[in-house]
C-alpha cells in the first residue's frame, strides 16, 4: 500500500492509460520515464519534437549517436518503422491534432485546466520549448506532478499564479497522491492513495475536489 507514489511509480501509473496504437509525446524529465512502462501487448508510438516518430529506448552508455536524440537531448535508438522529418512537419503533427496524448510536467495546474510549467517568474532565463504547442495539439493533455511543492504548498489550484503555458488544456493529472480528471472547471478525483482520506487530500489541494462515482485506490507496484 502506497503512502505516496515515487516519481517512477507516477510514470508507471500514467503509462497504464496509454492505449495500444496511441501516438504519444512525453515531456522532458519525469514524463520521459512513462515510455518504460508500456503494459505488455500494447504498442505506443513515441513522437519527439525534434523530428522522430517511433524511436526506441536509450542505447547503452558509450553507444550514443548524438544525431539520434530526443527533445531532452538524450540519446535514443532506431526501431523498425522509425521516421525522420523536419521541425515544421513535427509541429504539424503536434498542432494538427495528430497526437493522442501529450504528458507534461507542471509547476501548477488549475481546476480550469490551465497549466503553468515554463516559467517561475521574471527572474532567470525563460525557456518554453515545445510545451505551448503540445498543450493545444494533442487530443489528450495529461500532467505528471508531485501533489505539492517541496515546501508543501499545493500545486493543484483554483488559479495558477505562475505564467501560463496554456489555457484550459489539461484534462488529467497524475500526482504522487491521486489521479484526477479536469472537467467542467473542476478537479474530479478518480483515484487516491489509500493512506490518505478524502479530507486529508483536500487539505493538500488548492481547489475543491469533486467526485463522480467511486474513488478508486491508487496503488502502484515497486518499479
Amino acid at each position: 500500500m502506497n503512502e505516496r507514489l515515487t516519481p517512477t511509480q507516477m510514470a508507471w501509473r500514467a503509462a497504464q492509460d496509454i492505449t495500444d496504437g496511441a501516438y504519444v509525446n512525453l515531456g522532458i524529465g519525469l514524463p520521459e520515464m512513462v515510455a518504460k512502462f508500456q503494459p505488455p501487448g500494447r504498442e505506443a508510438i513515441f513522437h519527439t519534437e525534434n523530428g522522430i516518430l517511433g524511436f526506441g529506448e536509450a542505447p547503452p552508455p558509450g553507444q550514443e549517436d548524438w544525431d539520434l536524440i530526443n527533445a531532452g537531448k538524450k540519446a535514443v535508438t532506431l526501431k523498425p518503422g522509425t521516421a525522420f522529418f523536419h521541425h515544421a512537419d513535427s509541429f504539424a503533427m503536434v498542432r494538427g491534432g495528430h497526437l493522442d496524448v501529450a504528458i507534461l510536467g507542471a509547476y501548477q495546474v488549475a481546476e480550469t485546466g490551465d497549466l503553468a510549467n515554463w516559467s517561475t517568474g521574471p527572474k532567470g532565463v525563460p525557456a518554453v520549448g515545445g510545451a505551448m504547442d503540445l498543450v493545444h495539439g494533442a487530443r489528450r493533455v495529461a500532467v505528471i506532478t508531485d501533489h505539492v511543492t517541496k515546501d508543501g504548498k499545493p500545486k493543484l489550484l483554483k488559479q495558477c499564479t505562475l505564467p501560463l503555458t496554456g489555457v484550459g488544456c489539461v484534462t488529467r493529472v497524475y500526482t504522487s497522491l491521486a489521479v484526477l480528471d479536469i472537467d467542467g472547471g473542476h478537479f474530479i478525483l478518480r483515484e487516491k492513495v489509500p493512506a490518505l482520506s478524502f479530507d486529508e487530500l483536500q487539505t493538500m489541494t488548492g481547489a475543491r475536489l469533486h467526485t463522480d462515482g467511486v474513488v478508486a485506490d491508487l496503488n502502484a507496484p515497486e518499479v
Partner: protein
Amino acid sequence: MDKILPDLATAVAGIEDGMTVMIGGFGGSGAPIELIHALIDRFRATGHPKELTVVNNNAGNGHVGLAALIEQGMVAKLICSFPRSADPVVFTEMYLAGKIALELVPQGTLAERIRAGGAGIPAFYTPSSYGTDLAKGKEVEEFDGRPYVRERWLKADYALVKAHLGDRLGNLTYRMAARNFNPLMCMAARTAIVQVSRIVEPGGIDPEAVVTPGIFVQGVVEVANPAQEETLNRAKAVYPEVAQ
C-alpha cells in the same frame, strides 16, 4: 499496430453521404484509381455514398477515376484549381447543367490550405489571387507594404491516396511526381486511406526516405500494379464497363 486493410471494399466502407473527401493526384499521376472505383462499386450496390464534396487538383479526365465518380452523380461539389483536361466532358456537362458546384482555388493556395488543415493553422495570408475575382469576399491585409489575401484551412473526413511503398504503421513513399497532393491530404483528413503498390515490413522503408510518417495514415491497402489514368484513357476505358 496494424493499419493494413484486407481489401478495397473495406477501405472505402466508412465514407458516408455528405462527407468531404480529398482525392490525391495531379491529373492521373498519383490518382488512386482503384480506391475511387471501389467507391463507385459501393455506390452502385447501395446507393451510398452520395452528395460528396471532393477536393482534387482537377476534375477528372475521360470516364475513369474521378471523372467516373462525378459521372455517377456522387459528387455534389468539387474544390479544385484546374477543372480542365484532355477529355473534360463529364465535369463540363454537369457543371454547365448546374448539377455540380465548383469552388475554384489557385493551385498553391489549394496546397497550402490543405497543409494548413493538417498542421493546425486555421488561416494564413498569401499574395495569390489578390485583386482577382477569386479574392472576392476575402479579407485583405497589407504586410510590409504588400497586399495579401487571407485563406482558411481545408480539412476532410477522408482522404483517398495513392502511394508507392507502405508499412503496417502507415509510413509511405511515393513514386516520382505522383507524390503531389497525396502527402498533404494524408495530413488534412481525419481518416487517410492509402493504396500502395507494395506493403513492406516496418523498417523496409529507410527512415530518412519516409515521406509520410505513419501518424498521418489510418488505413493501408495493397494494390499491386495500379492502373494509370492516362493509360486507361488512351485505351478509351469507361468505368464501370458498359456491360455492367
